[in-house]
């Protein structure tokens, strides 16, 4: 859910052409167990989306890299009186779908179900057990641990995954964002069942949970659903604040050879937390620099003008602690140097001069004109409201978004890029084969 391109997702919120500036109406209350609940009534389809988000991502792993992800993956492997087969049969027998996972900041469980009373009841009862009473049986624990180890092994055949893991480690050093969310082979191998149980006890608690409900139910019914879904969850305590991300040190280039046809490049630094005052000028600026598909400066220079790469981009990924600003591309090995040079020159020119008036106007039109596309389905609304709630954004975030985008000017963008983006401190990761003629 809190995937790589959050910023892209956020970016397209704004008002639509006729000037309507409202997002969905978000209602808010506290469940009896102590969790914050955000609800959007979405009539039209007889379905309900529920997302429970915990501050229980891999940034809470401590030394046990991978424990957050393994905990999340084990929730539906047995809970209450049901084993994994029974859980799956109950949910799928009523057509419900359960999802979940862990990122660096959060772990989440998502449920999509029909609102027919009988089906809804079975889905909620099952999801509640998964949330509150997971078994973590020895057999399930061992199996999921082995599957995690295998998945980590598979990452070693992917230059893209290798580059990303190296990149985060370079950016974050001793900070808990440095290690991969799924852990490392040596740390996962050491995990014990007790570690997972302890992690669940500490973090899967009501005070550390946000519940988002979107669907065709009344406010009263939503309150019942919230109370039922969280029933029996201990109150507990919210997770501690994360340590601040490290300041940019000296810039370095890390190269790793890998027998692939392409070289993968990632370059950037930790820059942006949620609720940052520079957020809007940085976001709008990046939209012009590398965040807007086929019309950004980076894709124009790298792909459209030179044919160097299928994809080339830049993005901000705001997180609880400063998340990265990243530029990336992949290209055949013998032109990697050229591609990186183009990427850097494009960035430096943008920092020095900022966007043109025409570019800024076009970006604003794209961002504000596309607002509706980000909330045109229940699923998108649920994801967006979960982000607003989890990161403590104002509930009128969507309503004010377009005005704040419109307020950005060229000087703002140049000023914040010059203050916040320092290419001389970037960590650059280059993973690929030796340069040779294709």
């Amino acid at each position, binding site marked *: 859910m809190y995937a790589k391109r959050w910023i892209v997702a956020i970016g397209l919120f704004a008002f*639509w*052409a006729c000037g309507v500036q409202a997002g969905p109406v978000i209602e808010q209350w506290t469940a009896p167990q102590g969790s914050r609940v955000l609800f959007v009534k979405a009539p*039209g*389809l*007889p*379905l309900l989306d529920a997302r429970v988000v915990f501050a229980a991502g891999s940034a809470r792993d401590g030394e046990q890299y991978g424990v957050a992800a393994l905990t999340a993956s084990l929730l539906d492997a047995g809970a209450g009186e049901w084993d994994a*087969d029974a859980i*799956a049969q109950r949910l*799928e027998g*009523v*057509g419900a*779908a359960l999802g979940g996972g862990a990122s660096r900041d959060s772990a989440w469980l998502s449920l999509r179900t*029909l609102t027919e009373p009988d089906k809804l009841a079975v889905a909620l009862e099952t999801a509640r057990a998964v949330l509150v009473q997971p078994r973590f049986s020895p057999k399930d624990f061992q*199996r999921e641990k082995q*599957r995690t*180890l*295998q*998945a980590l*092994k598979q990452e*070693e*055949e*992917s230059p893209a995954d*290798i580059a990303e893991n190296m990149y985060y480690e370079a950016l974050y050093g001793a900070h808990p964002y440095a290690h991969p969310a799924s852990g490392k082979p040596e740390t996962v191998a050491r995990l014990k069942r007790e570690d997972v149980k302890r992690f669940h006890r500490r973090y899967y608690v009501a005070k550390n949970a946000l519940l988002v409900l979107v669907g065709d139910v009344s406010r009263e019914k939503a309150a019942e659903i919230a109370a039922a879904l969280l029933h029996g969850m201990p109150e507990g305590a919210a997770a501690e604040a994360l340590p601040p991300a490290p300041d940019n040190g*000296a*810039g*370095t*280039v890390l190269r*790793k*050879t*890998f*027998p692939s046809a*392409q070289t993968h490049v990632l370059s950037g630094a930790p820059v942006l937390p949620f609720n940052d005052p520079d957020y809007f000028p940085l976001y709008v600026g990046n939209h012009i620099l590398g965040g*807007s*598909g*086929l*019309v950004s400066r980076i894709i*124009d220079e790298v*792909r459209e*003008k030179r*044919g*160097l*790469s299928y994809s080339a981009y830049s993005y901000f990924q705001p997180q609880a602690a400063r998340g990265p600003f990243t530029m990336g591309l*992949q290209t055949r090995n013998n032109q990697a140097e050229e591609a*990186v*040079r183009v990427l*850097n020159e494009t960035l430096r020119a943008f920092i020095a001069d900022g966007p043109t008036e025409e570019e800024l106007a076009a970006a604003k039109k*794209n*961002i*504000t*004109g*596309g*607002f*509706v*596309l980000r*909330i*045109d*389905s229940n699923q998108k609304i649920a994801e967006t409201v979960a982000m607003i709630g989890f990161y403590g954004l104002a509930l009128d975030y969507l309503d004010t978004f377009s005005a704040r985008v419109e307020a950005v000017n060229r000087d703002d963008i140049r000023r914040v890029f010059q203050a916040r983006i320092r290419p001389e401190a*970037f960590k*650059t990761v280059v*993973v690929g084969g030796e340069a040779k003629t294709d």
Partner: protein
Amino acid sequence: MKILRAAVALLSCLPVLAWAERPAVHEFQLDNGLKLLVKEDHRAPAAVSQVWYKVGSSYEHEGVTGISHILEHMMFKGTEKHPPGEFSRIIAANGGRENAFTGADYTAYFQTLEKSRLEVSFELEADRMRHLRILPEEFAKEREVVMEERRMRTEDQPRAKLSEHFAALAHTNSPYRNPVIGWPDDIRAITVEDLRDWYLRWYAPNNATLVVVGDVEPQAVLELAKKHFGPLPPGDLPALKLRREVEQAGERRMTVKLPAKLPYLAMAYKVPALKEAQADWEPYALEVLAGVLDGGASARFSSRLVRGGQIAAEAGAGYNLYPRLPALFELEATPATGKSLRELEQALREEVRQVRDKPVAQAELERVKAQVLAQEVYQRDSMFYQAMRLGLLETVDLGWQRADEYPARIQAVKAEEVQAVARKYLLDEHLSVAWLEPLPIEAGKAVIESIQETGHVR
């Protein structure tokens, strides 16, 4: 742009609603042959517009594989009226999103926009339907982009590479043996003239379907379509030659050895598709069979192979109801730690033997059906998906009405029918098997350079 290779994944979870009220599809045809499908969805003031062409990699002949996909890229490179890149700039300035995708049986272009901007999409799509200019200097760059796309999607992905080899093993003469992105030498050899010919042959209103789903009024959309697409002349379409796969006479096997970390197994049986099926209940029974094996965490593969027997780390089954030509019932799996490909293959064959020998349980059947009904509602949460399904069915000449039939046809499938198709089609003589045997990946050298030394990142 994107390649949608096997519609399998998409379509196996593609059902239709049965009990909820079903929004009508409005069908029109312009005088020049353009088919227009409009479906209203008034939940948000937005609309998706898709143009589907009846052309894709299964229309290609040897030597020009990948040409449909390259042409899709070139469709963003300018017309007589709009210079290269302007299409995307105009859509962006209107707050829109756009992309395109090529598959074996289709090439499709789409924009998603606030509803009042629909005309922007129509104007631009109509323009590039008949007035594309393929400039040699633009093509030279785009060919390199496509080669990079191929490196990213196929060359550096062991499983994708296996799939490419496997399709060529499983099919003898069917055009499904060729990759959508094309073989490397074909991509290199295709000329501007080849592309122009391909464009003139297939890009015409009478070979296209325009699909609009969103907060729109059908009659108004028709008027808009007439205004922009109406003046386009129809094309002189070539008659499609049948290229059905010859009958397979015995099991086929291959071992693919590539630098990789995990072994992997793919199996495929020759099966009929809904199009040209002898008995049209059979494809639906195959669809249910795929659901029994791999329709969620309660299905047999998850329950027995991943959790129960712990022989697979992952296992999947896929069947596509809607290809243009007969296709495959595919199984794929990764062995669990300590298990061999041989043991894994035996376990999959044992699962196949069981569905041949015994009817599936009623509870299993009902779970598959319950999921189909629910998915039908869930998918209506996405305008894009609704449009995609209509466009696809129309483009393979099955007709969009098949979408409406789907839930009832699935609900009607009986356990004996599932067993019957398993016995009839999951035959060793019609099976192909591929093993991915990992070769070691040489340990990479890591070097760290300080930026200060070079002054900038090279």
